[in-house]
């Protein structure tokens, strides 16, 4: 790392003087120099492109059955072949990913908002507010994630709405923990004391001063680890028949539909599973890369 420091012309518009160390730091933390982050971005971006552009990439309707062409292998007409009802696998893969990713992205929102608010309250006020909230967190994390999600969707009845409710009831906990931890550290900073002595309200201090400084880690968690976990939950629920209801395409139902033909038509189960794995890998790499970037930015 050869950090050549060229002192910025003092007072020149738009360029603040910087220390050499900070420059080196910035160079290292430039996002496109992180191989993990780049790999994650490329994989995730490609998958997002494929599912968003689905109508342009296939001319088949994912739900149209064709009993004259069931269980076919890959061909020029059907890139990945057809399933037991003669539906085009490539088309179902794209539209299935659309369903799963859409639900996963939406499902992250409510837990993020609730967890952030609750975590800020616990971290900022401390005392009994903190005790009550953290006991609540303890109770929710006592349940294995999948067990609680499956049980909740079971009692609420299958379908998209139940998935959102179940993931919200369980998912807010992680955000509450992350934000609380960050706020505990950040509230000892001088700018908070300054804001307090300036007579600003607690809500204003939390919302305008603390949150912008601590929210990045929660955002990284939401965009990577949590979405990945939600995709797995949605796929698992659908596999059990509790998630996306047929005939709507989704990776979980594709895997379970295909499992009866695993010895003869392995691709029906393998391909949607691989789609989940690759999506997960992309998001994991993204998470690692962003976490590295945050660490470099903070140190």
């Amino acid at each position, binding site marked *: 790392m050869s950090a050549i420091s060229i002192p910025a012309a003092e007072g020149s518009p738009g360029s603040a003087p910087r220390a050499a160390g900070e420059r080196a730091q910035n160079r290292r933390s430039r996002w496109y120099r992180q191989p*993990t982050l780049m790999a994650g971005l490329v994989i995730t971006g490609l998958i997002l492109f494929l599912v968003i552009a689905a109508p342009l990439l296939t001319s088949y309707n994912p739900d149209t059955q064709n009993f004259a062409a069931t269980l076919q292998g890959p061909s020029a007409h059907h890139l990945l072949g057809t399933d037991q009802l003669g539906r085009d696998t490539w088309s179902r893969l794209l539209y299935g990913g659309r369903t799963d990713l859409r639900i996963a992205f939406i499902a992250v929102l409510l837990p993020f908002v609730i967890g952030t608010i609750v975590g800020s309250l616990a971290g900022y006020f401390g005392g009994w507010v903190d005790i009550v909230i953290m*006991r*609540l967190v*303890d*109770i*929710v*994390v*006592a*349940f*294995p*994630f*999948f*067990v*609680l999600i*499956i*049980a*909740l969707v*079971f*009692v*609420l*009845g299958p379908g998209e709405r139940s998935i959102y409710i179940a993931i919200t009831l369980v998912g807010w906990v992680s955000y509450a923990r992350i934000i609380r931890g960050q706020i505990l550290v950040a509230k000892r900073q001088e700018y908070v004391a300054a804001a307090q002595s300036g007579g600003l309200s607690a809500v204003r201090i939390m919302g305008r001063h603390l949150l912008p400084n601590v929210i990045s880690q929660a955002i990284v968690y939401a965009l990577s680890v949590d979405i*990945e976990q939600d*995709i*797995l939950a949605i*796929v*698992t629920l659908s*596999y*059990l*028949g*509790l998630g996306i209801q047929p005939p709507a395409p989704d990776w*979980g139902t594709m*895997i379970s539909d295909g*499992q009866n033909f*695993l*010895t003869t038509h*392995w691709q029906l*189960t*393998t391909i949607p*599973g691989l789609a*989940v*794995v690759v*999506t*997960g*890998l992309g*998001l*994991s*790499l993204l998470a*690692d890369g962003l976490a590295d970037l945050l660490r470099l930015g903070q140190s």
Partner: protein
Amino acid sequence: MAFVIHRLALLVPTVLGVTIITFFMIHLIPGDPARTILGIHATPRAIAILHAQWGLNRPLVDQYWLYMDRLVHGNLGQSLYYGSGVSGLITSRLPVTLWLIIYAALLAVIISVPLAILAASRKDAIRDHAVRVIPLLGLGMPAFWLALILQSQLSVRFRLFPVTGYGTGFAGHLHSMFLPSLTVAIALCPVIVRSLRASMLDVLGADFITTARAKGVPASRLFIRHVLRNAIIPAVTVLGINIGFLIGGTLIVEQVFGLPGVGSLLVQAIFERDFPVVQAVALIFGIMVVMVNLLTDVAYATLDPRVRFDR
């Protein structure tokens, strides 16, 4: 000792909270729970019996009291599908699940330790990056999918393992449950490799390692006698913390491999709309996690005198 008492005191509200959540599950059922559970063909008499059994017509506090009274007497309710007590069902199936959990944890450690050593022995080398990236594949893999693939290839095609079942005798269990345990272990590996690698790198930076190196201790001996020994405690703790994840992984894997455990009991109960079983299994798993976390914390504090936690 003070730490153990404090930790035990924290247990009470958590366990109570777990029972409250499983109790409220019945009230999350849309409409009349008894009618929804029994289905549209239920006779009014059957519905009335269920109402009486669960005290659905009484105030909420009474209902909870009734529920707790049952639990304290070891009664987890009646299965609607099997017609027998849920407690008996769970006790008869628990050994299979415990077998699976312990076997999977062992496999996960056996796979993770060499990988972590490989990665930590040369930080930032290609093998370090490879070890950090490849397990990520396991993290995003649906367990049931991996189970199906392993089963169709290794059991059905190559006949290396029984397709389903639990096997008989110790060797039989070991053989039959290899694939299910491997499936669960693969999902767990990334977490263990990551923490083991980090703690090994920590240990490698310590003064006593420099001393050992200066004395000419060979690298293999250094890793096994000095690094691994000190790095394994954090890794075991990670295993304890992830017990919930481990249990969650067993659910559908048990179902796919036809293992008669608590996880497949839950999955079948969902197919049969057997609410009391779902409720009881969630409760048992919740309490199991709380207990394992307690044991992990206490064991950690006992093994490592530096850790006594604040307060």
